[in-house]
């Protein structure tokens, strides 16, 4: 409903119905856009991850140094006619990777320092807040609560290291076994070829008397029994 008493503009439209440019989003049913919130400061988890990344980068740097030294030693040991070109190529590749590792390391140092400062600030703020709430803390039996928490039992309960160790060992063991089986096949194949060339009729006596590993210590899977 329009107000009949509202003043009219030049085109005869009541002025109260006019909208300004600021009113357009509302008129279209849109919400005004909010400015993006600032990114949250890094926390303890960030610090842990960045420290770990820094450790990895440091290890990569050390590996680069070791590889560089290896090339230098190999260059001095091997004859130049054989090793010069491959070692040059390896050297160049190592140089590139060392440069990249150094850049990553510097970046990681910066990131870790930033996270450490942020965490330190949060800790300091937390401590200050606690001091302000001293009166309340006096009424909370913190010692009794802490005494009731069996931290070693909790850590033993989780035993994350054991979980990681077992899964990794299993995976690596399976992979190594697969490689060993392939190489065993190559052993037998090479022996067969040589025996054929030498016109041997009988297979090689490979069994070693006095050495028995086919005892019960070799666990046979249930489905294979």
């Amino acid at each position, binding site marked *: 409903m329009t107000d009949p008493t509202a003043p009219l503009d030049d085109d005869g439209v009541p002025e109260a119905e006019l909208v300004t440019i600021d009113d357009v989003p509302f008129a279209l049913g849109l919400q005004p856009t909010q400015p993006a919130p600032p990114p949250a400061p890094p926390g303890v988890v960030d610090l842990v991850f960045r420290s770990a990344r820094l450790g990895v980068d440091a290890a990569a740097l050390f590996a680069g140094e*070791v590889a560089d030294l290896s090339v230098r030693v190999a260059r001095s*040991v091997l004859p130049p006619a054989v090793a010069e070109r491959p070692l040059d190529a390896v050297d160049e590749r190592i140089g590139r990777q060392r440069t990249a590792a150094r850049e990553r390391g510097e970046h990681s140092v910066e990131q870790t320092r930033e996270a450490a400062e942020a965490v330190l600030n949060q800790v300091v703020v937390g401590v200050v807040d606690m001091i302000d709430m001293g009166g309340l803390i006096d009424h909370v039996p913190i010692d009794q609560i802490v005494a009731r928490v069996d931290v070693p039992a909790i850590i033993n309960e989780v035993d994350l290291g054991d979980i990681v160790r077992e899964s990794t060992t299993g995976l690596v063991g399976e992979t190594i*076994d697969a490689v060993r089986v392939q190489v065993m096949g190559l052993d037998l194949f*090479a022996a067969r070829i040589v025996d054929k060339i030498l016109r041997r009729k009988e297979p090689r006596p490979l069994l070693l008397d006095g*050495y028995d590993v086919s005892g019960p210590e070799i666990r046979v899977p249930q489905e294979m029994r």
Partner: protein
Amino acid sequence: MSRLIRNERARALQGQRAGIVSRGLAFAADIGVAFLIYVVMGAAVSVLWDLLFSKKMDIPQLPGWVNATAIFWILVIYLGLGWGSTGRTIGKQLMGLRVVRSDGRSLKPRQAFVRALFCAAFYPGLLLALVDRRNRSVQDVVCRTVVVYDWIPEAARPRVLVAGSAVPVTKGSGQQRA
């Protein structure tokens, strides 16, 4: 700790004389390990020296014969220690091999070091294993040793007490262990 060998042929070959490919790869891995030991030791000694006695960090370039000699002796010590203790080095463990005496018992330390010296000085002797009917290398013939497939590490073998003896015996190797 238990150990599982899923492959049937691999199970059947346990305890038998290993072929040249496995042994060659194991030896190559051992040379790599000896090389790595030398490089890491050299880098560590150099860094320590520079930190303590020098103002600038620099890894010196040693003559080739010094590097070759050092790697040779590191290889001998490394192989000798491995074979004299568990019969395995890292390369052998990787390929699931073990060095034993021709009667199946573990090597004596002196025998292990003689074999190591022989291997490091004359590694082409391994080629004899390709044509020998019992897969023996020159080192095996001289030192009376055998390299067998043995994937099960010692720690995985259950030890049992023989009746009337207080010495634990590792089943399978036919040998008493302290």
